[in-house]
């Protein structure tokens, strides 16, 4: 994989240039900085407002006229989210984590195996299959929602006598079949760039294709695997429409459904809960941002990869 630098090509010595810069350059720089500060404010103010709201007291949240900042930050609001009446938020968190990690694991495992098949073997129909794989990248998932629902309802009913609706199977199982075309594509591109000399040397040493996969391809592809992991994590963590269709019991909801469930709870005008709702939303956002900050490199690479050949 070519090294893709997202950092802009910083001027070698901006300090030195600053002083000798002509006046129109300086004006231009000033406007650029002003513009970027303005943009930064626009992008971050909704978050600032919701964090501020999440730290307010019950009295402050419905004070009129409203205030922007809380008098004293109520950090205990975040703990209170986990002990709400009628909204098992801790359970939602656990459910989300369970669904996310089981499908992430399946995605990494099966996408790598499939990608290896596309990258290192020549088989009849491979190139046609690869074209099919690429074309499914633009296929809107909504088209198959209904038959997939039926597959998890009618087919198991006929086979084992009960429906798989309202279980986690429909959310997890599909990830165990290649984990989506994009992940296979990304890993395949990465595998293609590993020199075949490595395979050849291993073959001379008597390695089987499984050993080559396990001992050469996988260890050399850690960055790509991390990219797939990050994408899969965020995809599952944020997924809404699938849990919405497949799950009915509130105890089984992941965060995405759980947050909406919380939002739709009848509220007592005497006891507003918007500050807790904000805290809950931010608790859902936090893992996504954390993953991004820790795996930024892989993340950016994955996105850029999608744009290069997609």
């Amino acid at each position, binding site marked *: 994989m070519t090294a893709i630098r997202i950092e802009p090509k910083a001027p070698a010595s901006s300090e030195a240039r600053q002083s000798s810069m002509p006046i129109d350059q300086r004006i231009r720089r000033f406007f650029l900085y002003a513009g970027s500060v303005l943009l930064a404010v626009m992008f971050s103010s909704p978050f600032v*407002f919701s964090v501020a709201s999440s730290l307010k007291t019950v009295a402050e949240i419905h004070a009129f006229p409203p205030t922007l900042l809380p008098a004293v930050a109520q950090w205990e609001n975040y703990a209170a989210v986990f002990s709400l009446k009628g909204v098992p938020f801790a359970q939602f968190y656990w459910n989300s984590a369970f669904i996310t990690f089981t499908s992430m694991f399946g995605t990494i495992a099966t996408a790598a195996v499939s990608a290896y098949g596309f990258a290192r*073997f020549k088989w009849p129909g491979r190139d046609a299959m690869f074209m099919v794989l690429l074309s*499914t990248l633009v296929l809107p998932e909504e088209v198959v929602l209904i038959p997939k629902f039926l597959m998890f309802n009618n087919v198991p009913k006929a086979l084992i006598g009960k429906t798989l609706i309202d279980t986690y199977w429909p959310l997890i199982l599909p990830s165990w*079949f290649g984990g989506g075309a994009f992940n296979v594509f990304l890993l395949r591109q990465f595998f293609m760039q590993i020199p075949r000399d490595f395979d050849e040397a291993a073959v001379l040493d008597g390695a089987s294709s499984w050993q080559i996969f396990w001992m050469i391809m996988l260890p050399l592809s850690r960055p790509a695997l991390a990219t797939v992991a990050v994408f899969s994590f965020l995809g599952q963590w944020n997924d*809404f429409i699938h849990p919405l*269709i497949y799950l009915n019991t509130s105890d089984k909801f992941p965060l995405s459904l759980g947050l909406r469930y919380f939002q739709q709870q009848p509220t007592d005008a005497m006891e507003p809960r918007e500050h807790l709702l904000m805290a809950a939303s931010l608790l859902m956002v936090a893992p996504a941002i954390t993953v991004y900050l820790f795996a930024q490199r892989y993340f950016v690479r994955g*996105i*850029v990869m999608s744009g290069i050949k997609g």
Partner: protein
Amino acid sequence: MYPDRVCGTSRRAPLRGTSPTRTWGKPAHAMVAVANTSSVRATPAKRRRWRATDFQGWLWASPWILGFVLWTLGPMLWSLYLAFTRYSIIRAPIWVGLDNFERAFQGGDSLFWPSLGRTFTWALVMVPLSLMGSLLTALMLNQGLRGTAILRTLFFIPSLTPAVALAVLWRWIYQPDFGALNYLLREIGVNSPPAWLADARYAMPSLMVMSLWGAVGGGTMLIFLAGLQGISQELYEAAEIDGAGRLARFRNVTLPLLTPTIFFNLIIGVIAALRTFTTAFVATGGGPNYATWFYILHLYQTAFQNFELGYASALAWIFFVIVIGLTLANLRLSRRWVYYEGEEAI
């Protein structure tokens, strides 16, 4: 260094028919060489038999292939069949021919055309705005300003926000009495600011603003940024020597070389805009008075609330044809404006 690779053609080719050589272990040029000799010999190329390695390749790729058949191809065909039936899960599907499509196109479903029109309006507004916004922020990040890494993270974080959380956060911002937006408006002297999401006139633009917040700094921006950085600095220098100003350089160097990136983002953006669901579903539920009732909302309601699975399958296939049609149209039109470096001018 590798004698077998250099003369591999002459040594291996005669063995082809008899021994199942592992072609995958060889470098690409060796495989080409093998293929060339076989085409000279003609017979083995025509009657190409299945070999152990073929099976091995299929086996390795089988998780995805199986998944494609199980979760994509099979369901697509099933839904195509259901599109011509009346089906409510309780009873077996009844074949009704083209009734479902007639119902959709000829007014039997009063929400079909409006929801389709609304979705197109959404795409027509959102795609250009988010592409331009992403391009502008990417250009800004590409100026070599100090603190760019922090800015990039700040711009990017909104796009990480899960759609549900985004909708919940913005509902509170738009809240008529206690929300931040109306607070600010009152501060600057607007006496009775609108109710935003709760007002049928403002619901759609409000949704657009919140979606733009989540879209502009996201993947599209990163792809633009990578595209911008892929443009060779020499071209700018050459243009500068030729006396091109800043704007001229943007118009004659940046834009043409960025067209493949713009094209990619356009295709992805159009599809994403047509698929709009979660933000609208959580923020407005399609209301007020169907003002934000998008196509996928209609599909969801028909299928999973009314359980008209036959009709909903027809809706799904109409959507599929529209998406594929637009993507193909985009591909076709791209020949007129997308410039690929290194390609011969026709």
